[in-house]
Each structure stands twice: as C-alpha cells, then as structure tokens.
C-alpha cells in the first residue's frame, strides 16, 4: 500500500528533517505516527498524499513509484486517499454540509446520494444540527470533526489523519477513534499522526515513531 525506501526530505537549503526512512504499510492496517512537535509527522504524511516529493529515496503508493506520475494519475491516486489536515482547511464561505459534500462532488456522486450521506455522517460526528452553519461559527473541535467527516465521506482506501484529536476532549477523541476503527474494519488503511500518548496507549496499534529525523517502529 505504502512503502518508503531510504527516503530523505529537506526543505529548501536546510538540513534534512527526515533521513533514512524505511517502512511499509501493508494493506488493511492501522498505524499511529508519533513524534515530538516539529519531528516531521506532517511532512511524512505530505509525502503520502503526494504534496511533497522526497529529496532522496523512493516512495511507492498503491504499488507505484510516485516519481514521474502524470497529473491525472496524481488526481486518481488522491481520490483514494482521505486527508484530515492539521489545520482543517475548511472552505469558509460554504456551509459545513457543502464542505463535507465536496469529495462526493469531485467523485461525481449523484445529488440523491450526497443528500443522504452527508447529514448521516455529520450526525455521527455530533454535528447533525449544524448542517447549514458556516465553519467560522464552529469551535475548533467542531471544525476538526467537520474535517474528519470530509476525509472519510468518500470511503477512501487510505486515511491520513494529522492530529485528528488535537482539539477535542478525551471522550470525543475516543469516539473519533472508534469511527476510524470502523472504517478500518470496512477495509480502509488508517494512519493517525498524534502526540497524544494516552491515545496511543489506549488503542493497541503499531506505532511509527519519529525521533531525531529517523523512524523507530514500535510494533
């Protein structure tokens, strides 16, 4: 599903933030990605959703080297990936219903399907009463849940969640983890980047740990 081989990343004119990264995510798996703030968790995820190219090494996604992919191939791969961005990236001038519907629209889903699925999922994340609200009128935690709903609505085969529980209380964090587990059972590969040790301890999944720019797997 995802394979990193001797990957090194550095942003322009800086020393590498990640080097010698080797790991593989097998189909049907659930991983935590852990590390201090600034360790490079978001950067690693960016490579997985094709927003950052490795400076060295090779990244394979869905069995293909990501180097030299054509524009439409990148689009097609991204359609199979759901992303929860650390900064949510909700569109401010449309309602949360429309925000969550966006991936379905990109997929060309029927209006009928959109009208049924979106409220269902928003209900599940506890925002069923806010369908027509705009993102700016929601709290940080609520916005995060909208971002999660948008990432999972199209049933991606790979879910990359960057600090998806960073802005919610423990109880809600647990509930969101159950949602991810449910998706995982339905066949989605999940990678959750977090520095919430409690979460990692409560759920017994393999952890990819970034320490000083290198990866230490704790299985």
């Amino acid at each position, binding site marked *: 599903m995802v394979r990193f081989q001797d990957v090194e990343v550095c942003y322009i004119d800086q020393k590498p933030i990640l080097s010698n990264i080797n790991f593989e995510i097998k189909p049907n798996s659930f991983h935590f990605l852990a590390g201090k703030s600034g360790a490079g968790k978001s950067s690693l995820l960016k490579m997985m*959703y094709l927003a950052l190219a490795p400076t060295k090494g090779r990244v394979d996604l869905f069995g293909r080297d990501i180097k030299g992919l054509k524009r439409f191939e990148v689009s097609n791969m*991204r*359609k199979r990936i759901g992303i929860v961005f650390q900064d949510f*990236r909700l*569109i401010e001038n449309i309602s949360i219903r429309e925000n969550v519907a966006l*991936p379905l629209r*990109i997929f060309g889903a029927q209006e009928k399907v959109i009208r049924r699925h979106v409220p269902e999922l928003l209900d599940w994340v506890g925002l069923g009463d806010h369908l027509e609200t705009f993102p700016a009128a929601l709290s940080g935690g609520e916005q995060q849940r909208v971002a999660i709903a948008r990432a999972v609505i199209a049933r991606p085969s790979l879910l990359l969640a960057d600090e998806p529980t960073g802005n919610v209380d423990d109880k809600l964090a647990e509930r969101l983890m159950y949602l991810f587990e449910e998706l995982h059972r339905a066949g989605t590969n999940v990678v959750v980047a977090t520095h919430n040790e409690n979460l990692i301890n409560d759920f017994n999944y393999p952890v990819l740990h970034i320490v000083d720019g290198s990866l230490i797997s704790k299985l």
Partner: protein
Amino acid sequence: MLRNRGASIFLAWIIVCMIFLAVITLVTVLLTNSLSKQWIHVVDNVITVQVPEADLKSQINDNITRLGSTLKILRGIPGISKIKIFDKQETLKLLSGWLSESALKDLNLPRLLEIKLHKAVNVPRLEKQIKAVVPGVSLDDHSRWKTNLALLITMMGDVGWVFLGLILIVCLTSIIFTVVMTISSNKEIISLIHLIGGGSEFVGRICQVYILKVTAPAALLGTCIAILTIFVFHQHLHNLFPSLVTEKLFNGGTTLILWDWCLIASTPLIFTIFSLVTVRASVLILIRKN
C-alpha cells in the same frame, strides 16, 4: 465556493454594456437589411419617365402632344404592364418634401410617368427611341440608386459584424481576466480541491458555474435593456418619419421577421456558450501552467 466580489461586479457591468451594444448592432444590421429589401422591392421593375415642358426650339411644341407621343411609343413596347401618369398636383406633392413651396412655384416641372414592367426592357434603347420623336425625354430605371443602396447596406452589414466581433473579443477578454483573478484569489480552495483529488476538469466546472452566475443574468439584462431601447427608439422614429418607418417592428416580412427576432433573442444564449468554452479553456491552460 469561489469568491471574487470585485472582479465579478466588474465583469457583470462589462457584460451588460457589451451585450446591450451587441443587440443594438445586430438589430441595426438586420433592420437596414430588411428595410433596404423593402425599398428596393418598391422600385424593382419600375421605370420613371420624365417628359420636360416644350421649349421654343422643339419641333413638337405642344406639351400635350409630347406626352401623347411618348405614351404612344410606350404602349407599343412589349413587357410594360402599367403606365401611371402623374399630374401636376401629384408631382408637386412628391417634391414638397424636398423643396419649399416658393421654390416649387418657379420651377418648370416635367411630367412624370411611372411604368411597371413584367418583363425586362432595354432601357437605353427605349430612351433613344422616344428621344428621336420627343427630344428631352429621359428614362430612369433607378439602377444606380439600387446599386448604391445595396453597396451601402453591404458596408453597414460588414461594419456591424466587425463591431460584433470586437464586442465579443472585449467580453471574452474580460472573462479571461476574471478567471485569472478568481483563480489567483482562491488559491487555497483550488489547492484543497487538488489535494482531495479534483483535477483541472473539476476546477474548470466550478469556475464555469461561478462565471455563469455572473454573466448569464448580466447578458439577459443587457438584452432586455437593448430591446426596450429599440422599441422606444423605433416609436420615436415612426413618429418622426411615418412614411419611412412602419408602425410595427414585427409584422411578418416587411420589417424584422421571426427568424431575426430569434437571432436577437438568442444573443445571450450564444454569448453564454462562448463564455463557458472560454472559461474552461482558460482554466485548463492556467492550471496546466502552474
């Protein structure tokens, strides 16, 4: 989803004005075309004969004999279906629109005949034939006037099309400008769409919807204002020149026919199709460039 208030207000105004101009131009071209056909039809197959008053040197001094001789020759020509003789009063009436009464009083008016043909007649030969018997008679088949009118109408038509072309260029350039502005001011949303897997096709589609929401009402408004203006202006023209401008703008054949009106009404539609294609092309090019 996309947002660019300033550029869309700018675009809306440009489109209202440009479509207004386009419809006015189109109506002018169509109207002159149909009016010219109407006028040419009136003088088609008509020859006007002028029989001047006798002068002292003429062999036939009697005015009545001059007219009679002319008529006698004309009646012997095959192809003439009707001869209308204008008397002094009628001739005066024809000229009263052009000359003042005092000028007309001093004028030595010729007698006028109007001949309707049902078959082509060799006009110069006929003129020679009559002149041999009645000197000073002249025939006019209005061919020069018709040629000039046709030339004028063709020229007006060409200028009209060039004008329409320029208007379209202004519209499409404004649309491209707005698309460029909108894409650059909505970079975040567009990059998000890319990350979710939306390709340039999807971005093109939302840009089309965005531009359509601005241009379609603007084009419709421009067309409505133009048609209203034309009706008011036409009424005014009719009041000024009742003999030249018919009362109705639409009366099945003599002024604007149904087809002309369809063409005018479809202006916003044709424009919208052009604008959608332009939006799509410019989005695809812009995104490919980035």
